[in-house]
């Protein structure tokens, strides 16, 4: 009987005050140095990575371009981060891989968000028995090692990207469902909803102008915090050989390749590892900062 | 030597939004066996005064700016923590407003009840349990043996408060501070709780400080009353003098506001206006903006508590300077 988080938003955002709530939150976020750092780093990194999609030769080398004669070399003027055993430029692979990892992160998060929000909203709005059953299901699923199924899925049905998004997204939706349901329950009971009813506002209007803005806060926060988990999961799969396939790279693939030759060519592990860790840091700092700024409280973490 | 002598106590809170001077220059004495009532609105500083004496004000953001609180000669505000811990719970106890949140929901009542004994007296557990049972009995809780094994949420509000009282008095302290012990209770239960405290006080011969926003409650219970407003003492006198020879406009306002003392059917008397914003203290008497009898110097001169009649102190500038009748 695991605890469900109950979220409360301090200062409910009703339609009229909505703008000042977001503006206040933005101001608070700006004051959080770590969050700002995270946001900045993410922006730069994201821009570079996605730029490498558009301009594959950004660094002067293509991510798949091999140079067998050169072999692995440590960082130098030509190859800023060095090369791997096949002579491929690490920086190019890192940026391209970053683009892949970030894309997977965003898409899978979007999948989990969709499933989670819909599921949680239904449970929260419906209430009663349906809610109880739905949440019990979530409790059970939460405790199972879902990653096993993702592994099975990826092994058996081949590695295509769509499946990857779906599989990972299907694992991560549980927390979002819980959060959304909790928030819907809290908001439903709040007095300004009763006031809206008393004023004769239509149900639909109530939902859209009053309940939804209050859901956005926790959704944004937990979506931001889900992305790093997805990236880790994707890397984990890639490490096992199940995620992104060569010649594409993702950070997981790069780290796997780097770990294999860690002794002789340490830069192949260090740079991808560092970049991935920094990205995860940034996402977590940003998520924490958003959580403080939007004053989202939960009974878990 | 007085049992408790508070001298020039000043406590403030340093928050993000500025400094709040919660208690300013508060002084009073309490003798053994005496009852003192501290009355004031929310934000008057009455609770913070008591928390300070007990050392329960978290030191950031709170800070004791000045003053001493001498309990039997020992300054509780500056003595080492160890010494403070030996005194509180043993000779100096406190009960709080909300018994539900003040009791640990994870521990059984029995464990919490005997805890002061286990901390302060070298009592074996069986003997401590026996004393706990006796205390529960004295506190008017039936079926005490079964109750010991229960958790706080299984008790009603009134019973929880009785348990708190039993817990506070199990070590037979010299002084009990009761911070709004009846505010959260039903009216009928309020009287019972007060009666219980009075009974225990007589049996143990201890002194009591009763904090409340309700002058009526305090009047029925205390020998002496201290009225606080905006962190300062406005008036302090024996209870009869306070009522029949009031020397501060605020006290008179409070007295007139007691619903039970007003004519049925008439409009309820209120003191117009709001307490001052604690973040932005204005010069002069803090009550001046709401006082019907204020004159120009009331808004500019700093107030002091002075004795204007035997044992009767007031901070009203007009009473001090002109002997103005209130």
């Amino acid at each position: 009987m695991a605890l469900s988080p109950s979220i409360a938003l301090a200062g409910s955002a009703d339609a009229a005050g909505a703008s000042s709530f977001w503006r206040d939150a933005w101001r608070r976020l700006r004051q959080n140095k770590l969050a700002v750092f995270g946001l900045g780093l993410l922006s730069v990194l994201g821009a570079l990575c996605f730029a490498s999609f558009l301009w594959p030769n950004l660094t002067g080398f293509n991510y798949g371009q091999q140079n067998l004669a050169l072999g692995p070399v440590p960082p130098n003027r030509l190859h800023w981060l060095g090369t791997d055993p096949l002579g491929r430029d690490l920086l190019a692979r890192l940026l391209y891989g970053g683009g892949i990892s970030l894309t997977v992160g965003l898409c899978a998060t979007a999948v989990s968000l969709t499933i989670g929000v819909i599921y949680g909203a239904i449970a929260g709005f419906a209430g009663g028995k349906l809610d109880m059953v739905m949440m019990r299901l979530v409790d059970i699923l939460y405790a199972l090692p879902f990653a096993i199924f993702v592994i099975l899925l990826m092994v058996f049905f081949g590695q295509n990207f769509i499946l990857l998004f779906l599989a990972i997204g299907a694992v991560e939706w549980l927390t979002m469902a819980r959060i959304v349901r909790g928030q819907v329950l809290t908001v439903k009971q709040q007095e300004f909803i009763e006031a809206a009813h008393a004023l004769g506002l239509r149900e639909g209007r109530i939902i859209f102008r009053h309940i939804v803005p209050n859901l956005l806060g926790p959704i944004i926060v937990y979506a931001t915090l889900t992305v790093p988990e997805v990236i880790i999961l994707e890397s984990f799969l890639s490490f096992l050989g199940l995620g992104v396939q060569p010649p594409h790279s993702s950070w997981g693939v790069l780290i796997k390749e780097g770990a294999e030759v860690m002794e002789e060519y340490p830069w192949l592990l260090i740079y991808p590892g560092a970049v991935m860790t920094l990205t995860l840091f940034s996402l977590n700092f940003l998520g924490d900062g958003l959580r403080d700024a939007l004053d989202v409280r939960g009974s878990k973490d | 030597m007085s049992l408790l002598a508070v001298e020039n106590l000043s406590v403030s809170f340093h928050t993000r939004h500025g400094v709040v001077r919660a208690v300013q220059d508060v002084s009073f004495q309490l003798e053994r066996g005496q009852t003192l009532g501290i009355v004031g609105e929310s934000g008057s500083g009455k609770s913070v005064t008591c928390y300070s004496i007990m050392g329960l004000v978290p030191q950031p953001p709170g800070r004791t700016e000045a003053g001493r609180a001498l309990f039997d000669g020992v300054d509780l505000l500056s003595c080492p923590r160890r010494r403070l811990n030996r005194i509180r719970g043993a000779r100096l106890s406190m009960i709080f407003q909300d018994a539900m949140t003040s009791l640990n929901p994870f521990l059984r009542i029995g464990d919490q009840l005997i805890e002061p004994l286990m901390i302060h007296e070298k009592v074996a557990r069986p003997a401590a349990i026996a004393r706990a049972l006796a205390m529960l009995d004295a506190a008017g809780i039936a079926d005490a043996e079964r109750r010991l094994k229960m958790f706080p949420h299984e008790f009603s509000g009134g019973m929880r408060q009785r348990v708190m009282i039993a817990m506070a008095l199990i070590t037979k302290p010299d002084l009990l501070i009761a911070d709004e012990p009846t505010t959260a209770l039903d009216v009928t239960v309020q009287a019972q709780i007060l009666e219980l405290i009075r009974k225990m006080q007589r049996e143990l011969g201890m002194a009591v400080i009763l904090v409340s926003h309700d002058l009526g409650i305090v009047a029925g219970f205390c020998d002496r009353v201290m009225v606080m407003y905006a962190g300062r003492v406005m008036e302090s006198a024996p209870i009869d003098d306070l009522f029949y020879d009031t020397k501060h406009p605020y006290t008179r306002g409070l007295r007139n506001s007691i619903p039970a003392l007003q004519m049925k059917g008439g409009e309820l008397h209120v003191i117009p206006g709001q307490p001052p914003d604690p973040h932005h203290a204005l010069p002069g008497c803090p009550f001046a903006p709401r006082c019907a009898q204020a004159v120009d110097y009331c808004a500019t001169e700093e107030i002091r508590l002075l004795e204007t009649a035997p044992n009767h102190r007031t901070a009203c500038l007009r009473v001090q300077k002109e002997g103005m009748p209130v």
Partner: protein
Amino acid sequence: MLRFIARRFLEAIPVLFIIATATFFMMRLAPGGPFDAEKRVSPEVRARMEAHYGLDKPLFQQYLLQMKHLLQGDLGPSFKYPGHTVNEIIADSFPVSLELGMEALAVALVLGLAAGMVAALKQNSVWDHLPMGLAMTGICLPTFVLGPLLISAFALHLDWCNAAGWFFPRDRVLPALTLGAYYAAYIARLCRGGFLEVLHQDYIRTARAKGAGGARILFKHALRGGVLPVVSFLGPAVAGLLTGSFVVETIFGIPGLGRYFVTAAFNRDYFMVMGTVLFYACFVVALNLAADVVLVWLNPKLRFD
């Protein structure tokens, strides 16, 4: 309490059943079979091998057969390791994984709880920021980055222990640390949060008013409430430790069940996969039940639901 446990048991049965069914059909419906990789074998021999294992029968019949065997506790033979049954392989390798998991959990709990409590007590000081900073690192550093780094530092350069293998007690250290780091970090954060919330409660103030000292307040009054979020997390944590072990066992060359699972999946070793999945599922369900029992025990308010 007993009713609670019984209810959870009953819930577990359909869950396990669904897992078994889903796994079965996922495997059989996927392209590729267990003997596809056997290039040395002719098609006739392969057909005979398949018949030997009953793989030529209609799918649904195979399903019923599998269910029947499962209920009898017979997990079937392994394709990859002929002559060994799945039961045997699990019996051999699971204790290794179990040991690794428990050591990692111990690391996580000890480090996490200690760090969290200290951080909560010394809020906003160096003793708060430093552990929490490390915790953030622990969360953001994936196991497959941390593992090689630790190996590089301690095994290869400092030569304190072996880089791989599971022979001496010393060999347990790096894998347990690697696997436990993420959970230590998560637990530290949860613990800090839980304790902070508890330490601001009124009943802590009452305890102070009673003259209780720091240790008593921490361990007798604050602990139960502060540790609640950690206990809630233990269920998913165990699940995570199980899957995390796949990577750690691979990196450190540990002969645990995790490694067998991954290779079995790759090799379409049907019975092995099924056996492992179910075994893990049962294990996780049991552990979650235990965690929930502890949770209810800790929180008296839940006991009377």
